[in-house]
């Protein structure tokens, strides 16, 4: 188990690379990628039972980035975790490359589902949970969703199904950064109280500061409580987290950082050496 202090360092490294990739490729969704990186790191260096040398082991745990627009966060996480050569990240969003702006199934080892259209990851994960149950495997399924994604009806269809079948191998993480593409998520749709909604649907819901690494790590690492309820972690996060001039500024849903902004961001993240 990696020490929590190291997790924070890994997260900073991933953030710096993600900011740089957005600049080099000229791709958006930077704020959305930065808000969920602590959740990714706490899971990939925490409870997730995976072996980068055997990425298709049938007994592995599954991680699905249902908010596929945070693809760079996933790609850098997988590269850091040893699933593929980090040099491949340089091909992100290049013509004919393996790494599109939304991840494809196994586009690189470790990508368990093709996402990009919201509301798809949880039903797929429930299917994987049923498969594990049918085949008597102990695999668990972790799904990372966005708050805006919770506006999709398919999420709530899945939310009704999982507790009925006591699919407690499933852990949902919601990157509740309070923004969606064009406005405040709680204003556009009545999401709040988000944890309360999941609880009312029969889930074991908890809330956590999504950037408090020890708290996030503890939350994702908790075992099922035996009640059969699937778990949801509503993680209160900040869009653009880690870069002062991006934090909670929704312009960074679409804005592309300039070379100068990348330098500033990297300094703030303690990763001053610019690669690009």
């Amino acid at each position, binding site marked *: 188990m990696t020490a929590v202090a190291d997790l924070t360092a890994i997260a900073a490294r991933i953030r710096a690379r993600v900011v740089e990739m957005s600049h080099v490729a000229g791709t958006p969704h930077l704020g959305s990628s930065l808000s969920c990186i602590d959740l990714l790191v706490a899971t990939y260096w925490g409870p997730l039972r995976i072996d980068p040398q055997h990425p298709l082991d*049938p007994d592995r745990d599954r991680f699905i980035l249902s908010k596929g627009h945070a693809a760079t966060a996933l790609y850098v996480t997988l590269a850091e975790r040893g699933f593929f050569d980090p040099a491949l990240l340089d091909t992100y969003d290049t013509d004919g490359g393996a790494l599109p702006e939304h991840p*494809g*199934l196994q586009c690189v080892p470790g990508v*368990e*589902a*093709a996402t990009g*259209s919201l*509301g*798809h990851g*949880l*039903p*797929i*994960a*429930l*299917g*994987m*949970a*049923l*498969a*594990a*149950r*049918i*085949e008597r495997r102990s695999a668990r399924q972790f799904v990372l969703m966005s708050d805006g994604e919770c506006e999709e*009806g*398919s999420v709530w*269809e*899945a939310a*009704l*199904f999982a507790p*009925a*079948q006591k699919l407690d191998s499933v852990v949902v993480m919601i990157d509740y950064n309070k923004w969606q593409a064009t406005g405040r998520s709680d204003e556009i749709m009545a999401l709040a109280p988000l944890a309360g909604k999941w609880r009312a649907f029969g889930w074991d819901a908890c809330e956590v500061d999504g950037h408090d690494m020890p708290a996030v790590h503890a939350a994702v690492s908790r075992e099922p409580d035996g009640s059969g309820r699937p778990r949801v972690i509503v993680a209160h996060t900040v869009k653009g987290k880690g870069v002062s001039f991006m934090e909670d500024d929704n312009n960074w849903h679409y804005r592309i950082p300039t070379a100068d902004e990348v330098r500033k961001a990297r300094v703030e993240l303690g990763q001053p050496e610019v690669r690009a």
Partner: protein
Amino acid sequence: MRNAFAAAITALATADERIVLLSGDIGNRLFDTFRERFPTRFYNCGVAEANMTGMAAGLALSGLRPFTYTITPFATTRVIEQIRVDICYHDVPVVIVGTGSGLSYASLGPTHHSCEDVGILRCFPNLTVLCPADSAEVGPALEAALTLPGPAYIRLGKKGEPVIHESPPPFAVGKGIVVREGTDVCLLGMGTTTAVALEAARELAARGLSARVVSMHTVKPLDEAFLADAFGRFRAVAVVEEHSVIGGLGSAVAEWRARHDGPQAPLVACGTPDAFISAAGSQAWMREQCGLTGPAVAAKILARIGNAP
């Protein structure tokens, strides 16, 4: 046909432990035997087809062979994005089974009709589209779908369809089954309207025209070799389908014909109109309104080849 499906899936699941059946809260008692025998491999997914379809993809990504089953519009057009992204983009071997296709549920109104499903679904890469002609083709169609590496859609009628085959015929994906031999014109049935094509063939025989009738059960991939031969050999090729003339087998054949160099016999398309049929009525009545009866199809063919009375 739905009873044939229940029997076939139960038989197949006995031999193949990977089969999982997901139902969208229909088929009351239909799957009792399946549930009894395979309690861990049947899930009533409720009135939540998007989740059912996504879960099927997750099961298939884990190496199992899931089937989704509900009334055709809810198995297909309701969840078109889940089919496109979760199933077809992932290219996983899910079998989507729609029951009560076309106008089978005529009296329930256009919410329960499905005359657009094939047109939409055959656009999706990786998906095989199968329309068995009668109950005897259902089992072989399921078995064939299970051999595919990717997804399939199976379009079923409801119940009490005319028998075309006395016993399960040899069935290969992408190969039409000749159900009546003939030499003048060729009728391609898509699914349950193969029986209408047979009636039309009998009408034509009475007028001195010999008609070959084919169960063109695979709409995608099309039996191109068969079409190349048929358009060179016959005086006309007719398609008979309980599906809109936009997008169905007739469209698929017309697309193929437009791309294909070679002899081009006239193509006669018999299908449902580009309209919702909102009046109350039975399937037989609606078929009459759409010209999907033996005499109407025969008359259309005769008019087209200049043998009209």
